[in-house]
């Protein structure tokens, strides 16, 4: 029986991958635990992101900025703080504190453009620009208020 097992392992190339040191099914470490926070995590729902003690395992410490081709740019002069972008952002990347929209978390934004679509202002207070566009240039080229089209 043992020989059969080894032969099968050789066939699959497990030998080269260190298959000689295979552990039994009951010796395998079962499951894994990742801790989201370092230390005590009591009352985390009452703490803002900047007050929390994130551990290295928390994806808050990771970034997906490289996924982006276009980035949303936020214009605070037009914004009415309706928070539509906050509620519908799939990546928790809208920074909103004390009922005010402050900006975009570019570490976690994937550039899906949902925030731009749900923005109700005229002109929109969030617009998509190329990832390499300078922030000042983007804000300078903001469109003027559009007149309502007569139906």
């Amino acid at each position, binding site marked *: 029986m043992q020989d059969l097992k080894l032969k099968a392992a050789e066939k699959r190339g497990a030998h080269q991958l260190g298959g000689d040191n295979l552990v039994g099914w009951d010796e395998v470490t079962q499951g*894994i635990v*990742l801790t*989201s*926070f370092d230390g005590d*995590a*009591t009352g*985390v*729902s*009452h*703490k*803002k*992101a900047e007050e*929390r003690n994130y551990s*290295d*395992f*928390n*994806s*808050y*410490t*990771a*970034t*997906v900025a490289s*996924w982006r081709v276009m980035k949303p740019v936020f214009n605070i002069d037009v914004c009415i*703080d*309706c*928070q*539509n972008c*906050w*509620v*519908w*952002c*799939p*990546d*928790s*990347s809208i920074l*909103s504190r*004390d*009922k005010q929209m402050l900006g975009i*978390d570019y*570490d*976690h*934004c*994937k*550039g*899906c*453009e*949902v925030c*731009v*679509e*749900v923005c109700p202002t005229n002109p929109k207070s969030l617009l998509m620009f190329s990832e390499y566009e300078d922030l000042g240039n983007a804000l300078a080229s903001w469109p003027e208020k559009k007149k309502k089209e007569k139906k």
Partner: protein
Amino acid sequence: MAITSIKNLKEFSTNNDRFEGAHTLCPGCAHSMIVRELMNCTDDNLVVSSNTGCLEVSTAVYPFTSWDTSWIHIGFENAATSVSAAQVMHKVRKKKGTLKDNDAPVKFVAFGGDGSTYDIGFQWLSGAFERQHDFTYICLDNENYANTGGQRSSATPIGATTSTSVAGTHSYGKKEKKKDIVSIMAAHGAPYVAQLSPNKWKMMAKGFQKALEAEGPCFINTVSPCCTEWKFEPKDTIAITDLAVDSLMFPMYEIIDGHELNILYRPKNILKVEDYLGAQGRYKHLFKPEYKHIIEKIQSDIDEDWARLQRREEARV
């Protein structure tokens, strides 16, 4: 239970997110909108369990986790089972007084995709509902097995092309109707069962809070457009849910105690189903002249379902 204020969006936005970014869901995925909304609905501690699916694989990419709450994943089918076990353990330890904080309120939530809810995990879900565990099950219904490449599931509606029901010269896509999961779960006698949509954030938040508050198993089916498999631009996620709700493809309603049906949203102008189908690539073939009768069939099915819902609301059965 400490529910948070959902009076208006500004107050709702003062909540602190407990679902972190940098998960690997596709850009514009509605899954994370729904999950974030649920976790912002309450201040209580949460114990969350996930079935295998897009949500599970993308929020727990080793060595990262996106969950700021307790989160369990075991197998494809058993989010309902594992969360009900956790709930029983919490109950017993509370009785014995061996918890760190005995009075801290805890809510139990399970997430599943439509594949693991309608098909693979159905037996486990049904069992947990029969045992009357106190938890909320949320189905993120994107109408296919999006995690493994868009195979058909029993949630896929008639006429949709998927990688295992491909539309072509001899086929118009999936031939069978979608399972009516909401009625099935309501037939378990659950205290709160609903179908909700993320574009109506307030109704959805209200529904989540009702489900979390209710004692006993609650089921919520949410429409979660999948830009990859439904084939539309990521930015249109909310627009697609608007169309789905306004064309009554996904009517929003709740069933309390298995018999008291309330329609939550009646669209002012009911859209033709063509508007919803035309916005997605997976229904493109239906607009060929030879498959026109399928669109008519979908429309007549929707009209029938809507009439049935209204009759059930009146009759309270």
